[in-house]
């Protein structure tokens, strides 16, 4: 028995690796066959417990993933069998058990994660539940990690996740890729959910144990692989990559946020920028323009050297307005107008948005900045103070304080 300890450690490492890399894939394969989120999760958990003892005795199987899938599937079917009223369904599952009995090759497991993403991001679920469910099932974050990102307690988040899973079942949300006539709407919901994951990570900075920006990029890369040649998916990925390019440059030595045009370009990830630009070019060639491609193009213009391409950005915001006539887009248009030297017009445009954006922090920051530019310093200071009070994190607070005291470079 002297080899038991190293063997046990090897087994637990192997299981950790499969779960870290492939939990979402196994789960989606199980949901597709068992038809239930909860049943699939329970069955996978039981298979993991079996793996610990079985692999410990018999050694690692050739295909750990295939082994887990097969065992989990059998456990799931056993559960269904135990539910007496589901006899008919259990009979249907006999064929599945047989089909997968000889599965040895990991690559033979079909990747059903696109269906999983669309189910988790169904518009019939609350926005926050969509985010939580996607992070839990597709990205394999723990309930505790998700709770931390949303400043919730672990038990509150746990309840939200169970409710969401139950709702998928009771509402009859299908585990499938939407049909053509619903595709655009559903894709919108998926992309906005992933974008919210990204922005949550962006605002949180480094306070969380898992980088939500990276998880959002992972989700979009996965979608690009499973649903190639979809311009808005590529546009959304390019947008997030372009933001990620500047990650190391966006906060200076004093902990203050640095505006894009003042960042140290040596700190940018130029390879990633090239990759994002190529992706965006490919996407735009298809001429299926949408808001994510436009936002990515704006982000890229903002990073032009030696100065941002403000005139092109103004045109792009005009184009974005056709898709999203929202106060936030109007505010961004006004900010670009100010950069083009049209400060009085920009100020009018910003002030016209007061009712709609009175609780939106960037509105105060933009207004203060324009007031400062046209020399109305006293008013600017009052508005800066409001912006500082509403600042989402320390870096923007420090940046605004610098701006206010006029010491920013």
């Amino acid at each position, binding site marked *: 028995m002297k080899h038991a300890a190293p063997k046990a450690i090897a087994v637990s490492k192997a299981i950790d690796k499969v779960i870290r890399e492939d939990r979402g894939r196994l789960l989606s394969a199980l949901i597709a066959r068992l038809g239930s989120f909860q049943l699939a999760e329970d069955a996978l958990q039981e298979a993991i417990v079996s793996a610990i003892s079985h692999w410990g005795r018999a050694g690692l199987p050739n295909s750990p993933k295939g082994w887990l899938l097969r065992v989990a599937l059998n456990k799931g079917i056993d559960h269904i069998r135990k539910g007496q009223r589901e006899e008919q369904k259990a009979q249907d599952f006999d064929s599945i058990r047989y089909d997968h009995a000889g599965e040895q090759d990991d690559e033979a497991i079909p990747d059903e994660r696109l269906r999983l993403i669309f189910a988790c991001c169904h518009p019939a679920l609350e926005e926050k539940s969509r985010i939580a469910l996607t992070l839990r099932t597709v990205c394999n974050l723990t309930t505790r990690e998700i709770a931390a990102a949303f400043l919730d307690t672990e038990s509150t988040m746990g309840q939200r996740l169970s409710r969401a899973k139950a709702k998928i079942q009771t509402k*009859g*949300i299908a585990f*499938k890729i939407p049909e053509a006539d619903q595709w655009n709407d559903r894709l919108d919901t998926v992309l906005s959910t992933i974008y919210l994951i990204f922005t949550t990570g962006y605002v949180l900075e480094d306070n969380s144990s898992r980088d939500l920006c990276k998880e959002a990029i992972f989700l979009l890369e996965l979608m690009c692989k499973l649903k190639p040649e979809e311009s808005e998916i590529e546009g959304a990925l390019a947008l997030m990559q372009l933001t990620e390019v500047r990650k190391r440059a966006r906060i200076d030595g004093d902990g203050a946020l640095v505006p894009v045009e003042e960042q140290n370009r040596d700190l940018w990830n130029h390879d990633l920028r090239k990759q994002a630009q190529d992706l965006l070019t490919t996407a735009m060639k298809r001429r299926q323009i949408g808001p994510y491609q436009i936002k990515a193009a704006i982000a890229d213009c903002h990073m032009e050297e030696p100065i941002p391409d403000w005139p092109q950005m103004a045109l792009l915001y005009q184009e974005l307005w056709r898709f999203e006539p929202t106060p936030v887009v109007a505010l961004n248009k006004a900010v670009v107008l100010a950069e083009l030297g049209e400060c009085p017009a920009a100020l009018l445009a910003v002030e016209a948005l007061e009712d709609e954006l009175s609780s939106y922090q960037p509105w105060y920051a933009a207004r203060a900045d324009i007031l400062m530019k046209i020399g109305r310093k006293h008013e600017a200071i009052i508005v800066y103070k409001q912006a500082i009070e509403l600042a989402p994190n320390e870096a923007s607070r420090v940046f605004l304080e610098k701006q206010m005291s006029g010491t920013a470079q």
Partner: protein
Amino acid sequence: MKYMLLIYSDPAEGPEYGTPEFEKMMAGYFSANEKMKADGVLCDGEGLQGIETATSLRIRDGKVETMDGPFAETREHLGGYYVVDVPDLDAALKYAELIPTAHDGTIEVRPLMDYNPAG
């Protein structure tokens, strides 16, 4: 799965009887009915008379209380329903989208209770 599509609307909104808009709405209902029938999903569907015709009843302390009017005063009233038998929520939502009142009211889509999941 069976879903009930509950049709809620504000009587103050929506087209007036006798106007071309009203005719258009009726034509919309007609084609929704036909589509649901043709697809073989329609189980049931009825329109309700206005809430002024409603009588509400409840039993409290063994005593039957009967009242004129609806159970709850709300801006949007239940005006009718369909029951459709479809594979999943997405399919039910597609039929809900065909109901003309979706444009000026709200369609609530709810699964019916399944008393015998074995079927």
